[in-house]
């Protein structure tokens, strides 16, 4: 499938570049609908990769790249079932999204996340599977999960550890503070910071540059330098599920879902 138009995301292959656009309001929250379409994309990648050298992931929404997991759906679904069933449901969801993200992470394509605005939680984790992050100067990153009594569940910690020093990982994770694109570039997370509204254009220019390189060499270089931290990713799912069973999480989710505060992500 060279192109697809779904409710949460769309993709198109053009001139050797796959553009994966997120467009589920309000800010591309990742729930069952998005996951289903991401799974379609992961399946389609087998075919798309034959004719492509790069993948760009971006958001069509003004609000931002992605606000992370759909916490409202998570809360509502977990309320409708026994705790053990809810934990199993979360584990199934995590297993599925890990398969998708591991597939993108290990793709032979050179992958670029072009981000702007909110890039939080699962949205941050989606950007982290990409080889390069190109950020609009208004992009903002955060792992707010500890505020809910959880850890990032879509591979965030192992991938952040892969890319950055442990001290900065502890800072971002344990304080749960959000930070801007300039800071993200200073710590080595973001490769280019660009003007407002320019991330996608710069990502396209970067992808066009990559087309000039020998594909086999680019693939070898990527595989050499970017191992998938499988053991830590598995451990992350286990820890997340252990934590999800605790009452503090239910209380945190309830507070978030019912909040009318302008800063609901703050506990």
């Amino acid at each position, binding site marked *: 499938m060279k192109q697809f138009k779904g409710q949460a995301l769309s993709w198109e292959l053009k001139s050797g570049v796959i553009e994966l656009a997120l467009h589920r309001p309000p800010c591309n929250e990742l729930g069952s609908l998005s996951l289903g379409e991401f799974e379609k994309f992961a399946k389609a990648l087998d075919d798309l990769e034959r004719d492509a050298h790069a993948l760009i992931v971006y958001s069509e929404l003004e609000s931002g790249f992605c606000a992370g997991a759909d916490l409202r759906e998570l809360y509502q679904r977990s309320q409708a079932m026994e705790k053990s069933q809810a934990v199993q449901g979360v584990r199934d969801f995590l297993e599925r999204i890990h398969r998708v993200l591991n597939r993108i992470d290990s793709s032979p394509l050179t992958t670029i996340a072009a981000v702007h605005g909110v890039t939080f939680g699962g949205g941050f984790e989606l950007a982290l599977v990409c080889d390069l992050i190109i950020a609009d100067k208004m992009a903002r990153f*955060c792992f707010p999960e500890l505020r809910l009594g959880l850890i990032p569940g879509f591979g965030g910690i192992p991938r952040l550890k892969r890319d950055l020093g442990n001290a900065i990982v502890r800072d971002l994770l344990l304080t749960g503070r959000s*930070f801007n694109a300039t800071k993200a570039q200073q710590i080595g997370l973001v490769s280019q910071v660009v003007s407002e509204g320019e991330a996608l254009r710069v990502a396209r220019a970067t992808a066009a540059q990559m087309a000039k390189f020998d594909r086999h060499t680019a693939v070898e270089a990527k595989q050499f330098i970017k191992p998938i931290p499988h053991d830590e990713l598995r451990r992350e799912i286990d820890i997340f599920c252990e934590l999800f069973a605790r009452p503090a999480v239910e209380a945190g989710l309830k507070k978030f879902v019912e909040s009318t505060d302008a800063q609901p992500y703050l506990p």
Partner: protein
Amino acid sequence: MQTAENTLDEILNLAAAHFQVPREKLSPDEDFFKALGIDSLQTLDLLTMLENHFHVELPDYELQGVSDFRTLAGKIQARL
């Protein structure tokens, strides 16, 4: 040297321009969530815009409970 009054004035000007609110309708002690009519995502925009302009880092937990421009200016001034 940047004075606290200058900082406050710059914040009011920036916020008015970014969120397209007449500058004269904003006052230092006003609740900026209400004055600017901003939601949680736009609040993050405000924070990012101010960090970029003043070249400071403002951890969002430090701004918890801050809702008026004057207190916000004080938090920024403390990091200049």
